[in-house]
């Protein structure tokens, strides 16, 4: 049985643990054995403290045996993107700036997972400070798409998606600022959900763009994604924008066959690969055949989303990353002279090219004489985009588009063209700008490469997104899929 454990869902593993036919220690030993063979090929993890994992698993088994199990995640490993703090584990953000930092505290979601009995299982690679769409911007290592090791897994939560697709772990956490959960989920054939802004606390998430960042669950099935979401949503006074759990978001929705699905006009046209359009059109026809009402909706300001995002996100990043000055933690240059020289040298040595590019861009759009023309106009554009999405969602339950216009591209293919890479997120960015929940669901293949569709809902409509995903998943063979390695 041990050989097949990596193929099982978290829900099934939980059932076996509860029935006593499996121990968490045996599960973790099996996953560690697979990690030792697979991880160097895929590069999903940057760190795995095997002794700590086995100690957590043994403690979980003791709790369960004593009748003190903590719920459906008891004994289940959850791997965590390396920008979410776990006490005693590295918190590198895949950056030279934080290469030696060990977190002195737990994020709120780490606390939630511990209280749910989950095993906090290793650190996952990502683009440096979550800035990127391919995980090529990591300063620590490259991560490859398990379905084709010559291609990118997506990003920035590339390690989180690749670990699932490679069968290295049943559940993972990502963070999503403009699509960083959903885009890699689509490229790796797994499920990724960005919750409503404020549903999950950001305490302990290293800040990139605070008005856009959200932590979210990633899994190989809708059922597992929901399991993890329910464990994470919780009120937290340490994040003023976190309103905590919501019955509306988390209570299972009604009959998914009655959902009204809006298709944004023009979103399946220019720039979308034919195979992606075909897979998404087939999903639309599936929902129509199930009885869902399909209608076209207008989102006239959709073209403003990418420029709006890259003004707002870089402006906030340039401010948030001002804290890396070589004083309190992180890299300090050995060539320090005056304090200002130390700060400048530390930042120049510690940050990689994409981070520097975004800091410079954000500094420009906030600088005197330009802030009104760029930053303030972007905030106004954001308001317009949000209003249009809310208006569209007043008439339908969800909006359906591709998650990404094209399948995963080859490593290095877009490395010298940041603007092309920014356009990867064209369908996912609006949900962040508008604070809306959104999910990527596997829906087909382009050759051997996974393709996903993307659902966006009104605030706190996570249950509808999951219900719609579950309806599709139940009729297709994409749940629990893993690449052969």
């Amino acid at each position: 049985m041990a050989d097949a454990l990596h193929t099982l869902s978290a829900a099934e593993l939980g059932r076996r643990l509860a029935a006593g036919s499996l121990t968490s220690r045996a599960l973790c030993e099996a996953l560690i054995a697979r990690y030792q063979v697979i991880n160097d090929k895929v590069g999903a993890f940057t760190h795995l403290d095997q002794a700590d994992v086995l100690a957590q698993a043994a403690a979980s088994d003791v709790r369960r045996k004593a009748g003190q199990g903590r719920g459906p995640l008891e004994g289940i490993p959850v791997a965590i993107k390396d920008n979410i703090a776990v006490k005693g584990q590295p918190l590198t953000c895949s950056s030279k700036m934080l290469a030696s930092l060990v977190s002195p505290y737990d994020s709120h979601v780490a606390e939630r997972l511990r209280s749910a009995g989950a095993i906090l299982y290793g650190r996952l690679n990502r683009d440096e400070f979550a800035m990127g769409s391919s995980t090529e911007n990591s300063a620590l290592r490259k991560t490859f798409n398990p379905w084709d090791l010559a291609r990118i897994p997506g990003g920035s939560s590339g390690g989180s998606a690749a670990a699932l697709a490679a069968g290295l772990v049943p559940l993972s956490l990502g963070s999503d600022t403009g699509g960083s959960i959903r885009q890699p989920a689509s490229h790796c054939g797994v499920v990724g959900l960005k919750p409503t802004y404020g549903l999950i606390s950001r305490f302990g998430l290293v800040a990139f763009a605070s008005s856009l960042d959200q932590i979210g669950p990633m899994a190989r099935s809708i059922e597992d994604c929901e399991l993890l979401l329910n464990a994470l949503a919780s009120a937290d006074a340490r994040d003023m924008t976190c309103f905590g759990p919501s019955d509306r978001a988390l209570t299972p929705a009604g009959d998914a066959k009655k959902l009204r699905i809006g298709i944004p006009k023009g979103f399946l046209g220019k720039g979308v690969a034919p195979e992606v359009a075909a897979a998404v059109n087939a999903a639309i026809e599936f929902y129509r055949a199930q009885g869902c009402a399909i209608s076209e909706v207008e989102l006239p300001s959709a073209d403003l989303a990418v420029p709006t995002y890259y003004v707002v996100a870089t402006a906030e990043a340039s401010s948030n990353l001002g804290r890396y000055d070589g004083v309190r933690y992180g890299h300090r240059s050995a060539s320090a002279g005056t304090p200002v020289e130390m700060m400048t040298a530390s930042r120049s040595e510690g940050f990689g090219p994409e981070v520097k590019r975004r800091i410079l861009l954000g500094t420009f759009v906030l600088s005197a004489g330009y802030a009104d023309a760029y930053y303030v106009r972007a905030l106004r554009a954001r308001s317009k985009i949000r209003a249009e999405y809310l208006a569209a969602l007043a008439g339908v339950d969800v909006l359906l588009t591709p998650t990404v216009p094209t399948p995963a591209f080859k490593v290095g293919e877009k490395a010298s063209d940041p603007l092309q890479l920014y356009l990867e997120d064209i369908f996912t960015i609006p949900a962040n700008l508008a604070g809306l929940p959104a999910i990527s669901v596997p829906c087909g293949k382009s050759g051997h490469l996974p393709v996903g569709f993307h659902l966006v809902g009104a605030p706190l409509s996570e249950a509808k997104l999951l219900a719609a995903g579950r309806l599709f998943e139940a009729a297709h063979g994409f749940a629990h899929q893993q690449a052969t390695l």
Partner: protein
Amino acid sequence: MAEGFDIDHLAKLARLSLTAEEKALYSSQLNQILGHFQALADADLPATIDDARVVNEDALRSDEPGLVLGAEAVTRIAPASRDGQISVPRVVDDES
């Protein structure tokens, strides 16, 4: 919309030291990206701003000092420390 771009000034504001090659590369790339932002200049936009965040004013804790991490945990992750405090290059001259 993108006129007036000064990479040296930006680098100084951002506390980054750039090589000549980096300045050339970033100038070219940022100009290309800023060109894409032209759509914002041309758009008909609302006068008011609604950024979707709901800030919970009740989440403010009482304004009282309390232990968060403690000196030992803070100095353990600092690049340099001495006598339980973070050390930095000299900020003030002896005569000042």
